[in-house]
């Protein structure tokens, strides 16, 4: 009867003193190592021309199960191309399912590793500029 208890305790103590088996981390001093397929905030990607890649097709808004995306298309006067005049994401509603990324025909929405999204009610809605800023900081153009 006492043997299984000791067995368990040994395992516990092993883990307790093993520096390589630590599950918790000292966040935020220590940063987590995210999986390559981690789904963070859907970010708007920036194209080679420095503008948003998004063409305002509205498929992300359509496919979104929590209906957190609102897209308003318009014509760009200079190039006559379709672009999103408004692209808004309600971060409180987003469930990070990644459907928008999957639906996007031009790879303009990508869920990368942004997960630090704590905010209050007044800032819950991310507009186009904010969503693009994340990409801009990464300095990646597609």
């Amino acid at each position, binding site marked *: 009867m006492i043997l299984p208890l000791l067995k368990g305790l040994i395992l516990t103590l092993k883990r307790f003193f093993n520096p390589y088996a630590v599950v918790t981390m000292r966040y935020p001093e220590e940063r987590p190592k995210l999986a390559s397929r981690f789904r963070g905030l859907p970010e708007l990607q920036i194209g080679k021309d420095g503008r948003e890649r998004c063409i305002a097709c509205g498929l992300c808004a359509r496919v979104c199960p929590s209906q957190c995306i609102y897209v308003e298309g318009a014509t760009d006067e200079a190039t006559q*191309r379709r672009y999103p005049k408004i692209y808004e994401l309600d971060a409180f509603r987003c469930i990070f399912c990644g459907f928008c990324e999957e639906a996007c025909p031009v790879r303009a929405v990508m869920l990368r590793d942004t997960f630090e999204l704590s905010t209050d009610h007044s800032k819950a809605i991310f507009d186009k500029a904010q969503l693009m800023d994340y990409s801009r900081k990464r300095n990646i153009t597609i």
Partner: protein
Amino acid sequence: MKTINIIIDDKPITVPEGTNIFQAALDNGIYIPGLCYHPRLSQFGGCRLCMVEVTERRTGHRFACAHPVSEGMMVKVNTPKVVRYRRSVMEYLLAHHELSCPTCDKSGECGLQDITHELSLAPSRFHAVRMNAPIVRDNPVLELNRNRCVLCGRCVSACKEIEGVGAIDFQKRGIQTYIGTAFDKPLECSFCGSCLSVCPTGSWQDRTFAFRGRAWELKKTQTICPYCAVGCTIILNTKSAPARLEEGMETVRRVTSDDRLGINEGNLCIKGRFGYGFIHAEERIKTPLLRKNGELCPVTWDEALGHVSERFQQIISEHGGRAIAGIGSEKGTNEDNYLFQKFCRSVLGTNTIDNLANMRSPSLNSLIYQSVTYGFTATSLREIEVANTLFFFGADVTEAHPVIGNMARKAVRMNGANLIVANVRRVTFRSAAKNDIRLQYSFGSQVEFIHALIKTILDEKLVDLKRVEQSADNLNELLSGLDNFSGENASQLTGIPPEAMRKAAAVLTKPGHCCIICGKDIEEDPLAEDIIKALMNLCALINAAYNTDTGYGKVSLLFSRSHNNTQGVNDMGVVPGFLPGYIDINDVSHKEKIERVWGTSLSSDIFQKESASIFDCALQGKLRGIYIMGANPVIHYPNGKEVLDALRKIDFLVVQDTFLTETARLANIVLPVVTFAEKEGTFTNMGMTVQRLNRAIQPVGDAKPDWQIICELARRMGSAYSYTSPKDILNEIESIVPIYSGINYDRLKRKEFYWVSSVLGRNKPIKYTFTRIRSKSLDVKRNTGFPLALLTGVSLNHQGAFSQHSKVLRSVAPACHVEINKKDAKEMNIQSGDTVVVESPQKKITLQAKVTDKVPDGVVFVSEDYEWIPVNLLRNGEYTFVKISRETG
């Protein structure tokens, strides 16, 4: 009609003879893929997708759209061979296709996309080069992207057959074929958008929509167009945005049409399809405005309505109710107008109410009602489509009522209808009629023209006079009146050769249904009453000859009305002479009923008709206040100066409108009202068809529907109305207005109400009595100083404040032109595009000249529908003469 029984996919079907397999399947809910066939257009057979297998009778693989049904036919839509064929055709169609669905506005309602899904096509086996033709954007309305075109030819047929323009066609041949204009010139057409509505792919695009929504995001609300009097059913496509955005809750993104809905069968004109910009225009009045220290300042509804009721009560107590006048709206709903006249008559206690249509042509209402009782009036606009002869008298349908033009072309196409167009000007009306007679009578000779027609009919013995005598009284009066009126005489007066007159008379008296459309030029002529009476004589003459015992004639008359509810505002009794439903104001027997329903007693001086017009009264100092609901008399009354003087003279002016019009700028208080998109109610079109509006969006700003404002005013003035919706008002109209009895608000959702039919269903048409019209001495006195007669009329691209504030219409037609005959222009050394000064004894205005042979010499034409061009300031109510000079400096 002979019917034929066939079986499609094991479903037995009965269809009329001559139907093709595609239409038969379509009517019975069986889907056959196809891109080029369209029920409203002639068969083309270009897309090759509608292949079916016929297994019984004429066996083999057939194209459904090109093959008529025959008795006992058995059709299989989806056999493996057919599907394989269809897939390969689609593969070819898609080989060069742009595949830009994510950015294409058609995506979601695209025929090509649907069939691709239906056949679950995989990526193409061909490695074809995608086309890269430049997108044609040569006008502000339509955009043509040839890369998406499948050459189905629908737009070509629609432009030719429906609109009669033929602006686009196939260019070049073989693999180089494309849709375009001749010599690739900029598109020059009426911009009706038929090409856009029939295009199965995204080749034609609406530039006013311009990526502002996706097909699946749009909510569609069926309602009635707010422009002309045809009353087309339009579909407002709205999209809702989150409330936090500037765009507001819900906005109208585009207007579409539906082939199956409304009297227009999916046809619209430029105003209806692209002129919706005013709904969200920045210039809309969003709060009530009150004049304080000479400036209109925004105030709350409470303050505004309090002020209005206070001032009205003050005027009533000091000068009596008759010191207030009311002007109803040609754009408002029947309910708004009914309530307006009820408010004026019962709460304000005045009968000095009127509307601008009645002021422009005072005799028209009683004449129209007379023609209804004689059974001449068309029961609906559909009578145009079934007519065998069409007679446009003084009507410029291409400009005024484009969709009536489409209906007429349908009559020509389907029934081989004959066409007579009689006008002072050489109006444009394109049709393929076999008998296409154009008559251009000289200015001011309309009565003589009709008399000449009657005389020709009598001389040529085209009607049986014995039968005429049986069905109408007083024929001798007509005959004796025309005794000393000879053919030569007539042709001298009217400028029409006798042969043309004979041809027209022969066509008019041909057996079959004849539809006469009496235009605005006639109705607003100073001699309108005589002309229309003469026209009714003509109708009776032709009618009687073919009359059967049913009492229904073969002639139907249609009177042009200018605005969407010009008919309704008169039906609702916003006129001094009639209570609602054309009941004479002096008819005291009806007073009791009205008093019982309204629950008030009307003062007896209500039942005295004021002989002078509202503006005369105001100038004479009889009026203290005027209440204007949705009208802009400063621009639309034929004598602009008189209105300005009158409105400046009175103490208190209330204007209820959507925009700050020229009239509203003079007001003491302006109340903002909603547009058609934001309210419910009913409109009555010029075919006397009552149709229902549906609300598509929330009111913009603080605007309210007219009826709510009137209810609120009535409550503040001590007689509360108990209406909660337009439905309650229509129920009261149903009970009190004889011509509208039987109307039901809920039923209107499904089916329109035809009041002429309902009147004729209850009362048999009365026997016609010919009247003798003595032609008055022509009022055409040309002054040497002012040699040119001024003719005003309508314009296709504009109508009132609505089009003025629609950016798209402004960009299509930015400037008002004065049309001058080539001969006159040469004498005055004026070229097209010159800036000229048009001067009448009253006023002068500066316009651009357009040299044309549309107007006869000695006449100039200016459209009065450009709201910002005050043409009426030139006029003085009668025939106006002007002189034109080049602008100096």
